């Protein structure tokens, strides 16, 4: 149903209807912004990426293949723009357990906001391609198939990355004593 609605809006956009594009912006600005935020961990950068994502979508709407879901296409743009923004930063070395500020005892459990911060920090300690699958799966709630469409990867590779990403997150959070 939603895909049909998107398809209609995209068709109207292609006919030059800017109001239809505005509806797509309203519909997808939040998930696109949040995807960028989780990948970049910086609200300003996420805002810039979200804006660039929609501008690129507008410019390249003619290239969009309607046989695919629109959100897969625009999330792909958002992910690529986020990875480009990350690439422009100093390359991260990936998670290193020694970087933890503290290593509380295994029985220490963080709740609520603290847990959220710990997870966000842990996310920034894994490689961007692994962080991406976590974001798509747990924040965008995409299926393996949709993740494959976004990342242009086979489902098998998507699963492999997702399992690896969870393993690294678990290891990091265990070191912090948060799970």
């Amino acid at each position, binding site marked *: 149903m939603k895909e049909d609605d998107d398809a209609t809006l995209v068709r109207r*956009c292609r006919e030059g209807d800017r109001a239809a*594009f*505005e509806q797509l912006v309203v519909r997808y600005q939040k998930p696109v*912004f949040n995807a960028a935020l989780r990948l970049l961990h910086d609200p300003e950068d996420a805002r810039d990426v*979200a804006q660039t994502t929609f501008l690129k979508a507008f410019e390249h709407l003619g290239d969009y293949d309607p046989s695919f879901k629109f959100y897969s296409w625009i999330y792909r743009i958002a992910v690529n723009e986020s990875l480009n923004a990350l690439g422009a930063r100093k390359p991260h070395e990936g998670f290193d357990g020694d970087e933890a500020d503290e290593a509380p005892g295994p029985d220490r459990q963080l709740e609520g906001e603290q847990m959220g911060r710990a997870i966000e920090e842990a996310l920034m300690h894994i490689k961007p391609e692994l962080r991406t699958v976590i974001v798509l*799966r747990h924040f965008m709630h995409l299926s393996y198939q949709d993740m494959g469409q976004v990342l242009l990867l086979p489902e098998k590779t998507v*699963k492999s990355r997702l399992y690896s990403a969870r393993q690294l997150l678990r290891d990091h959070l*265990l070191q912090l004593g948060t799970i």
Partner: protein
Amino acid sequence: MADSRHLSLIHAEIDGELDGQQRGELARSVLADPELRVLREDFQRLCAALEKLEDVEPPPELRESILGALPQSTAGPAWSWWSRPRLRYAAVIVALLTGAVVYEVVRGPEPPTTEVAGTMAPADTRTTLDTVRLDNGVVSGRVSLYRDRRGLGLRFEVSAGTPVDVLIASDGHTLRINGVGSQDKPAQGKPGVLAVALPGFRMGGQTVDLTFLMAGRQVGSATLRTVADR
């Protein structure tokens, strides 16, 4: 240490991808292996915590900044104008009109009937419906409204010190011809001839209104009627 098979089952369980048989296999393995049970609980806690992270509202100005940054062309993206039916049809009509005008200009006036030999059909099947004479100090000569097998057309035999543009309007149709009078033939001492087909213009007793413009200013007008036998 959990093997890759059991790890895959744990992740697939979290993602809701296990079938009944696999679920049973995992349950039996977890019961038999405390280490595997701890691992499963860790991943379940991790993923539950991930799911609890709430979405952040985007900045309020994001939508406006996106829309404000879009190209301002009313036609939208560069590819879109052709996909807009109205523009596409308009482009086709403009192309047809342009083609008709160019064809008539290149072809020039019809030859006199006497120059056409060896044909049984009348060489010139045009019927002149109306003619107006022009002599307003800026444009002089005459304009004829004719009908032939292709429809209505205008024949300009005018002189102008400076070429003028002509707006042609009839029954909701409009057409603009630029540079009328520029085909003067001074050496021959007579005005040049320009025939313009009017595709889409219909017979029906209505008038064809001409407005002569020079540098955007009206310098004359004329009205022709589509009824020949007034």
